[in-house]
């Protein structure tokens, strides 16, 4: 579990094992001495496969904690240097559960998911023990209703203390979900430890992108590994972009039309280099930025611009194209398709610079595919 997730869970009253963050072997040693007994020392980077990379180790003494922390600090995992480790008191599980609160797009609501088979992914649990996974709908304003929640998770089989703890933890997760705009909070495993207490040993928190502007403190939850440098550059410029493997760079307005344009390139026998939506109210600067991202991508042999003007004005895009041409060496063929708001004006602007634009999408795509064939 990351320390960011830990802090959020602690803030909302979810029980987690005792732990602290260390940035040096000495600090790790001191934490072990304070916690006592066996500890888990874990690299703090937002990357998968930390165990395999040697980023998770056990220590039983202060000296051992210093040694393993020294080995982990400075490792590179998933291209990131480890600068911090989390030293956690090891706990002994009697039983492992799974508990999550999530926004369910199909039911258009919030639900809790519980399984008495924790420690494996919910997909594995669903495949192996489908009957053991309980879905309980939650009131999106009030959270879990005690009676129906307890019935929904099968409280009779769990015993009253555990069932009541699960209800309290679900209430906490629900508050966290609503107040911090999460789309998923998953505790797995949620362990029953000696003494009968439930403790979250690992957690996954997914913060909704649409909620991030309201919670800038949660930007750390965005996994840098999920995005390439071209994707980060595009996001900073306000463009919606996904890098792909083909050689036709695409610049389109609107997400649906961008996807359809990629699909048509494939349909006509070539492959798109990217998804790029320049957005609704595009200005010439955005077009220039989009060009520079596409041209910076290795392997792009031609560029297709497809604009269906609605709020996007075709003349703005035409001016952006001319501006980009004057500022950067483009060096690959460009095929342009413009239609909709102010398209006549746009075509005049482009014709003045000797650039032709298509009306018909199919023709434009066949042309750009011919360039890379």
């Amino acid at each position: 579990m990351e320390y960011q997730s830990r802090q959020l869970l602690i803030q909302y009253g979810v029980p987690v094992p005792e732990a602290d963050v260390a940035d040096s072997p000495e600090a790790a040693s001191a934490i072990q001495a304070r916690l006592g007994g066996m500890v888990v020392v874990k690299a703090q980077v937002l990357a998968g496969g930390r165990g395999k990379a040697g980023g998770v180790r056990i220590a039983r003494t202060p000296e051992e904690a210093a040694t393993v922390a020294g080995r982990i600090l400075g490792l590179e995992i998933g291209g990131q240097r480890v600068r911090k480790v989390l030293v956690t008191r090891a706990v002994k599980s009697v039983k492992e559960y799974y508990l999550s609160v999530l926004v369910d797009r199909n039911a258009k609501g919030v639900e809790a998911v519980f399984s008495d088979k924790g420690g494996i992914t919910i997909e594995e649990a669903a495949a192996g023990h489908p009957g053991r996974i309980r879905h309980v709908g939650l009131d999106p304003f009030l959270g879990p209703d005690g009676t129906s929640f307890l019935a929904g998770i099968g409280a009779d089989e769990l015993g009253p203390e555990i069932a009541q703890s699960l209800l309290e933890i679900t209430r906490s997760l629900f508050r966290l979900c609503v107040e911090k705009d999460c789309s998923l909070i998953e505790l797995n495993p949620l362990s029953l430890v000696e003494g009968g207490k439930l403790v979250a040993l690992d957690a996954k928190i997914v913060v909704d992108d649409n909620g991030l502007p309201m919670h800038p403190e949660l930007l750390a939850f965005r996994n840098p590994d999920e995005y390439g440098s071209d994707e980060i550059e595009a996001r900073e410029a306000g463009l919606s972009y996904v890098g792909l493997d083909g050689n036709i760079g695409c610049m389109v307005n609107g997400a649906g039309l961008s996807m359809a344009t990629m699909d048509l390139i494939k349909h006509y026998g070539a492959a798109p280099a990217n998804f790029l939506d320049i957005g609704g109210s595009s200005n010439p600067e955005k077009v220039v930025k989009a060009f520079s991202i596409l041209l910076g991508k290795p392997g792009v042999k031609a560029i297709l611009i497809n604009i269906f003007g609605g709020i996007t004005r075709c003349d703005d895009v035409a001016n952006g194209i001319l501006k980009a041409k004057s500022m950067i060496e483009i060096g690959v063929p460009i095929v342009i398709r413009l239609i909709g708001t102010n398209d006549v004006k746009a075509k005049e602007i482009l014709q003045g610079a000797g650039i032709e634009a298509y009306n018909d999408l199919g023709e434009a795509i066949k042309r750009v595919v011919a360039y890379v064939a």
Partner: protein
Amino acid sequence: MSILVNADTKVIVQGITGRDGSFHARSMLAYGTKVVGGVTPGKGGQSLDSMPVFDGVDEAARATGADASVIFVPARFASAAIREAADSPIRLIVCITEGVPLVEMAQNYRYIKERGKVLVGPNCPGLISPGKCKIGIMPGQIHAPGGVGVISRSGTLTYEIVYNLTKAGLGQSTCIGIGGDPITGLSFVEVLQLYEKDPDTESVVLIGEIGGEAEEEAADYIKRSFSKKVVAFIAGRTAPPEKKMGHAGAIISGSRGTPDSKIKAFGDAGVPVVDRPDQVPEALRG
């Protein structure tokens, strides 16, 4: 006829004094929509051209007789705007705004359902019944009146297909963009139910995309109880898994939301799925 709106629909614009709100209020009015006023808190008493501005939705709806509202406010105020409209006499709420947090949408959905209101969007182009009423941001001139109902999760891709329909001489009864977010107000199935009952809608074009299960649900409904011809188009066949393709809802998660699953569902329902937007008119006639 048409669905949800007609030539008598009276519309107010929430966020009418903002950049997008004022631009589109004028554009809807120019199209012939009865835009009867707008709302911007603190600017009550002012006006935009002939359109009076009010402080609140309830006051605006009562003073003007409006039964529909279109929302252009920034994302952080959109949920409050939806709920304010739901608590007024407004019947149809169209939310154009992109970026409404998902948890808030789960709450908004419950809120409007409890009050018996209809929500289109968010993150959508709105809806238009050509020649009668346009509530949204689509270019009016590409549409023509006729008998094809259009439903879509997208904006510009819908324009592309409507453009092909109009060029082929196929006008539209109503075109609705339900929105590109994971949770939207109206679903494909609810819109299909309205088209089924509308005598002026002869056939339907459904424009889906990757992510979620709305297309599968629509295909299942069509198979069971839809009597009119449907043609489908699915965007995102070349999209990589686990990546949001512009729309917050357009993401293939594990084995869910794949184009193959949607295409198969439509195939099972006897709905042709075309490969290209320009094949839609021919498939509708075929």
